[in-house]
């Protein structure tokens, strides 16, 4: 059985690379995208067990990407450094699995990803 595929989407290089590395170290097959358009292209091209995505990105943001993902969408774990109540509500309405507030401890990230895949 192949490792679950995870798409990590973040415009910040440091965050994108370290999150991808933490997940890869746990055995996930990780693909990265550095903006919303890139993420949509990869989601259309391949299947992912879970998406870990930043909300605020230049151009198309995480919530917009979530709305665009065709059915059946994989569980999407959104991450944010900014979210207020309105943004959290919008994320929930768009169908996110959960929203994590940065900085996210690695242990919590791994726990949430495992749960999202199991769900």
């Amino acid at each position, binding site marked *: 059985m192949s490792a679950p595929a995870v798409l990590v989407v973040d415009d*910040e290089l*440091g*965050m994108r690379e*370290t*999150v991808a*590395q*933490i997940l890869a*170290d746990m055995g996930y097959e990780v693909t990265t995208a550095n903006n919303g358009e890139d993420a949509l292209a990869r989601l259309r091209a391949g299947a992912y067990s879970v998406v870990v995505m930043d909300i605020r990105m230049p151009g198309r943001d995480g919530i917009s990407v979530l709305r665009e993902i065709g059915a059946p969408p994989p569980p999407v774990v959104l991450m944010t*450094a*900014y*979210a*207020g*109540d309105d943004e*959290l509500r919008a994320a*929930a309405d768009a169908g996110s699995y959960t*929203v*994590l*507030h*940065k*900085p*996210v*401890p*690695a*242990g*919590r990230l791994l*726990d949430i990803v495992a749960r999202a895949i199991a769900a």
Partner: protein
Amino acid sequence: MLVPGVTPRTLVYGESVLARTTTTPSRQNQLFSDLDGAVYAGNKVDPAQLVLSTPGFRVGTGATRKPFQLGADTWLLEVSPHGSLVSPLAARQPWLYLIGGLLAAILVAALVELLLRRRQFALALVEERTGQLRRSLADLDAAQHQLVQQERLAAIGELASAVGHELRNPLGVLGNVFYLLRSRLGTDDPWLERQLSTGEREVGAATLIVSDLLEFSRPRQPVVEDVDVAVIVDEVLGVAPPPAGIEVARRLPFDVPPMRADPSQLRQVLLNLVCNAYDAMPDGGLVVVEAEHSDGRVALTVSDTGGGIADDVLPRLFEPFFTTKAKGIGLGLSVAHRIVEGHRGSLEARNRGGTGASFTVTLPAAAVPAATAQ
């Protein structure tokens, strides 16, 4: 009517000469009869022997008005002018004077009392109005000061919020880097372990400051879910490992149900409590994190073996910007308190009888599944 045998040389009515010795007795008699006042003529030798008396008159001798000799007998004659009956009347009935005086005194006293009362009332009114005015001015001053403070705080809050948000990403990356380093390098080397722990703890402290600032400037509603107590405690201790000299004991029974909480907010509360416990023991000590479950609520207590909380500090513990530390901005416990209240829970601090302090967060427990409950 004239006293028999008396021939006054001069009769005086007030300042007027009424009769002279040359006046004939009939003339004198007529003079006395014309006076509708009173004549008193008494025998000086025997004053009780009243010869003639009508109230009000005095008969004198010239300007001196002394009693004078009348023939062989000595007579005392008194003459008063018309209308001057008061004096003799009062002389004979002194109670009239007393009553009159008393009534006048009462009237004057009442008048004085009334005036004094009016003055006191006016003074009290002026004092009261002045006080009201002073209070209004003080209220206005306070309101203006508060508005200025609020505007300053709002401006600071905006700036802090913007900076805080920008710092969350790099802090997150740093945390991830420490995690990756630890997972690759292992913890067999005590020196390496110490450096990693120090790095993680400082990142955790910076993260906490930023989170407190953001939560204070822009509080948000909790998004509650079931939070496993042991998991959240481990997360917190992972982000904020104890400094050298401090031991941490976890007393988390397996049968304690999850708490209903916003995980990131609960983590922030516990981080504040754990870091406060560390700060309370600069010379080392023991931190105990323990959980209890009763009546549908879970109580999570963080205790230390430090110096405890001073009596004058205890009531102000949850005030924003109140701190007893040389470092720190005094937002941690205030924000923790507000977060817990947002969960309809409670945060209580107490001294443990000279053996340190403890803080207890009590939140609703998640519903226990029927299978687990049996």
